[in-house]
């Protein structure tokens, strides 16, 4: 009788364990050792799409907004924390941001200090910028025609 109960309950218990494990994995976004590679649910920066673990911190020097701060890789998206260089994923550990009202440049550096990539962002189009010296158009001298 007892064996029969166990046999009947076992599949449900197994399902519960599997479900709990899956939930834990999603909740921790692969934070444990041996995180699966290429998991599409792993959207934070702890691991690269290839499964490499990030060194942990990303230091940002944001000169465009006069601030400097650190973020944990798990606080940012995977795209922010990793850059593909050739066939290899490289962890971003430093970001430098410069810019003005019309342009922003984001330079991202790897663990060895090397520049991984630099991106230029531009402002949305607006009215044509005022030229410092608007192009004049010659006009005829009406006075001399009288």
């Amino acid at each position, binding site marked *: 009788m007892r064996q029969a109960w166990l046999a009947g309950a076992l599949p449900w218990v197994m399902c519960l364990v599997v479900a709990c494990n899956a939930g834990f994995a999603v909740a921790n976004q692969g934070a444990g050792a041996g995180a699966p590679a290429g998991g599409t649910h792993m959207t934070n920066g702890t691991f690269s799409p290839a499964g490499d673990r990030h060194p942990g911190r990303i230091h940002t020097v*944001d*000169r*465009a*907004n006069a601030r400097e701060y650190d973020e944990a890789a798990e606080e940012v*998206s995977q*795209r*922010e924390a990793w*850059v*593909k*260089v*050739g066939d290899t994923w490289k962890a971003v550990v430093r970001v*430098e*941001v*410069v*810019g*003005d009202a*019309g*342009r*922003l*440049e*984001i*330079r991202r*550096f790897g663990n*060895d*200090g*090397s*520049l*991984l*990539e*630099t*991106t*230029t*962002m*531009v*402002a*949305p*189009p607006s009215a044509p910028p005022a030229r*410092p*010296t608007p*192009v*004049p158009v*010659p*006009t*005829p*001298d009406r*006075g*001399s*025609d*009288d």
Partner: protein
Amino acid sequence: MDIGQAKVPKESGGVPTKKTSSPARTGNRGIREQVRSTEGYDAQAALLRPPTPGEAGPTVKDLPAGVLILSSDPQYTDKQYLSWFRDQVKAKVACWGGAFDPASVYLAQKSVGPDKQRVIAMNWTASWGTVPSTKEMPPDFSWSPIDARAAVAGVHALPGWAEVRAENQGILDNMLGGELNLVSRAARDELRPKFPGLPSKPPKDQAATLEGLIGSQDALPALSTEEVSTSSVTFTLSAPVAVKDYEFRGKKADAEKYTASFSDGTRIEIVAPKAPEAGLHSHSVAEAADALANLPARNRARVQRVVLNVVTNPDDPTWAAKYHRPGFHSYMTAGASGEVTIYPDAVSNPLPDANVRRGSMIHETGHVWSYQEWGTDTTKGKWAEWKKCMDSDKVSVSRYATADIAEDVAETVRAYGSTKGRPQYNEYKALVPKRWAMLEKELQ
């Protein structure tokens, strides 16, 4: 009679005033007919005679010293536009304290090979300083060569000029006196509204105002956007090769791969989506190759592949929010692997023009080149050498260049690559001599 021997007509008040027909221009023939119909034609026959085919005469490069061509556009080389040109020049020299004689601007003709071309010419006035080396004014009617020489003469005439430190006098001469470059234009535009008040100030204050231009962000253009028009190489494009499910940034899509072969032997792959995404447009493969052709050779050597991405940068929303730039979108990414990605934009937005496309690629690949060539520590080696050059030059090529040393290098590389082969090149060489010398060594 050509320009050099031409009599200068009387100022506009003395010009015959017979009414002409509509000012609408109909080309050279129309102008001639119109000029002939005025009483002024006979009086100025020597100047306004129709071109005589086959007649010998000096070519443009033989232009007499002290004569500038204000315009050779047939639409405007007519008596009725003379007063407009006179007003323009007067405004330029008067703001620097120069006196203007209307009679110095007149209609003439110049010889171009066997042909004659009607022009609006001007005799240079000695009190405006040295004669510009640009003999034919840029077609944008900015009169920047005249403005440059008059500005230098104007500041030299101030008693405070003698109080300006000798090394700064040279810098100011180059800042204000550059005839065509954008840095000099910005410097003059910054000083112009202040200049009329300077003569009444003590010499020390005059000197302080002038020296204040050096290192002032307000005296710089926002970006180094000199026209990029001197491609040193030509290119051919291969037939496309179809690629299934290419991994673009943010989306897999079918692609076409081209190979751009440049006349210097460089070969660069260009990847484009087989079909554009709905609502987006991007540069063409030929435009991407054109931008590559306009790179300095050292920059081009760093590029392995250009990807015309199928979608906008998926990081755009995050970065726009994070860095407080709402609505900003990525235009170009240059990566350490030698890949340059150009992103599409909404079809409702115009694509950047050729100059922005070429200049941005020089700038971005300038970053890749400098970090790979000089290393990542921007306080050591060639970076430290560059910093010394910056300190010595004192002037930057743009406001953006002053953001940090990496931007200074990228913006200066952009100015270098943009102006090579044009008169502006030597003007920058005078403006930022130490950095230019370093680039000439590094990028040759």
